[in-house]
């Protein structure tokens, strides 16, 4: 039986847009606009979507690096105790900060140039009660070895490392307090393709060794297929499709996911797929279109799409749960 580790309910993150002499709020960027999502213990959940659709913001909202405007983020412990995180005082968050960590996208800004690796990693350890310096050095050294780097590297400065090495150090930082869930925010997309594969394999190895759960953010659906157990596709701050990763490729329900999948380059020349080219840009999250947010670009749009907002409904494909939000799906809805 699958157990949740994190339950998101109607999570919204709006950033105010200010303008004018008096700095008045003239609107909101609806970066995340009502996300319901369960993350199960031990799975790799992919979160895919075009640039600017709110993936990073959702990941940060889980860790409360940005405050959600609305909604609940509930952490479920191994003993199945539930804690709602967004209503906690800042200081009461500490026990949960240990469990939830993040690996960032940009290896160049993810390490502090003024400190050695040990210097920048030791403060979190100190804060969580690793008081002896020997012990802190041991923890960091062991983790560096776990990501195939040498212990001595902890006394070097970030500029002495390559992008792939920095990214591995970022992974060490996320791992140093023995977390349960790691948000990997495009953890490999800034790297060379050959190094990407290595870091991905490393991430999977670490997941097995440490019983981790990943929320794996990416804009590249070709990576997610082999890596993820389930995939959520996001468009303009909402989840439009959520299902087992195999079903996403074989039984795609949402036209947006179809377009993303058709854009993956295929090596097999015989298997010609018609690439669906999406016209226009992602609409501004300040005024999303009325009706289905995807309708101005959707190749299948009908009149109903312009007026009525589709909701995320549950279907079944291949015997698995499959959520999608589109008016034109002719499968029976499951309650």
């Amino acid at each position, binding site marked *: 039986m699958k157990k949740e580790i994190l339950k998101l309910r109607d999570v919204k993150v709006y950033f105010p847009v200010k303008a004018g002499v008096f700095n008045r709020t003239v609107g909101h960027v609806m970066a995340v606009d009502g996300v319901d999502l369960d993350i199960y213990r031990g799975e790799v959940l992919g979160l895919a979507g075009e640039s600017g659709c709110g993936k990073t913001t959702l990941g940060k909202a889980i860790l409360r690096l940005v405050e959600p405007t609305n909604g609940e983020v509930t952490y479920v412990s191994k003993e199945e105790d539930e804690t709602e995180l967004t209503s906690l005082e*800042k200081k009461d968050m500490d026990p949960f900060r240990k469990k939830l960590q993040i690996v960032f996208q940009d290896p160049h800004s*993810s390490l502090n140039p*003024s400190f050695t690796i040990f210097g920048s990693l030791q403060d979190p350890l100190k804060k969580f009660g690793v008081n002896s310096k020997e012990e802190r050095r041991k923890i960091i050294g062991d983790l560096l070895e776990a990501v195939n780097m040498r212990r001595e590297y902890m006394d070097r400065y970030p500029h002495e490392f390559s992008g792939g090495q920095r990214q591995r150090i*970022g992974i060490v*930082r996320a791992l140093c307090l023995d977390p349960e869930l790691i948000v990997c925010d495009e953890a490999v997309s800034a790297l060379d393709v050959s190094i990407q594969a290595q870091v991905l394999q490393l991430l999977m190895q670490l997941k097995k060794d440490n019983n981790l759960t990943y929320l794996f953010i990416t804009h590249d659906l070709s990576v997610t297929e082999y890596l993820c157990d389930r995939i959520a596709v996001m468009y303009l701050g909402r989840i439009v499709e959520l299902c087992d990763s195999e079903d996403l490729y074989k039984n795609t329900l949402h036209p947006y996911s179809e377009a993303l999948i058709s854009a993956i380059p295929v090596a097999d020349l015989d298997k010609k797929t018609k690439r669906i080219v999406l016209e226009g840009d992602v609409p501004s999250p300040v005024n999303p279109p009325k009706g289905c947010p995807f309708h101005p670009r959707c190749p299948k749009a009908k009149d109903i799409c312009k007026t009525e907002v589709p909701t995320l409904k549950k279907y079944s494909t291949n015997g698995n749960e499959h959520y999608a939000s589109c008016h034109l799906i002719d499968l029976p809805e499951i309650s």
Partner: protein
Amino acid sequence: MAKTSLDRKFDQIKKREEEKSFSIKKRSRIVSKFLNNRLAVFGLIIFTIIILASLFAPLLSPYDPMRVDLRSMRQAPSFDHWFGTDSTGRDVFTRVLFGGRVSIFIGLGSAILSAVVGIAVGCYAGYKGGWIDVIALRVSEIFMSFPQIILVLLLVSITGQSLFNLMAIFILTGWGGMYRLARARMLSLREEEYVQALRSFGLSTFTICYKHMLPNALSPIMVNITLSTAMFILTEAGLSFLGLGVPLNIPTWGNILNVAQDILILQNYWWMWGPVGLVISVFVLCVNFIGDGLRDSTDPSQQG
């Protein structure tokens, strides 16, 4: 256990990493860039000489800067009195050396103290944002828009002339610039991912902004400290020349220059104001060279 292809790949990478020499350190790169800048090195040398000469003034000169000697009034430069003597027979060279102590103390001290105030406020407000930042910004604007000379006149008439009043005025009018610099750096640094990572551990605001972020904001602040040292020294000289600065009985570069107000002295006794004017100009120029050198060597966009 059999080695997988992944292990082998990592072994290869490890080997390559070990071969690569990591000898060039970032700090030494800044130093060597600075040393390559001739003007800056020249500035640093003269700067050091002037500071050392003022510090060890009693060793370099047998005279007392305050002692009036009516037998040797207004003597031209000679072997005994390198810069001559003034209207009351005091040795000008000695006075320039001792004046340097006070002038440099005022300049450097005001610059450092206003940097401390500016950084303390700017780092916190810039990182936290929100209403603290808005208030700090408005307050700094008020201080910066207030004309310095009026503030000096006001304070002098209220509390009287003193060295510390002058420094207090310099700090009051000077911290705003430092604050803005620190704040601007913090605004851009706080979006960096390492800062986000520290926040994800729930570290305290003080640890994050003063310990982890501040070192990355220091180099433009260092440049600004040197440049405002030069500016404060000039302002002190200007105010003392007008008789509004440090009380006239304390020798400072500005107070020594003060005698040039007398047209008779200006025309007939060049050594009473010429050498000290030159020392002020040279010192300020050197400090500016050092500042430029620091800026060029720490500016990341110019790093090769």
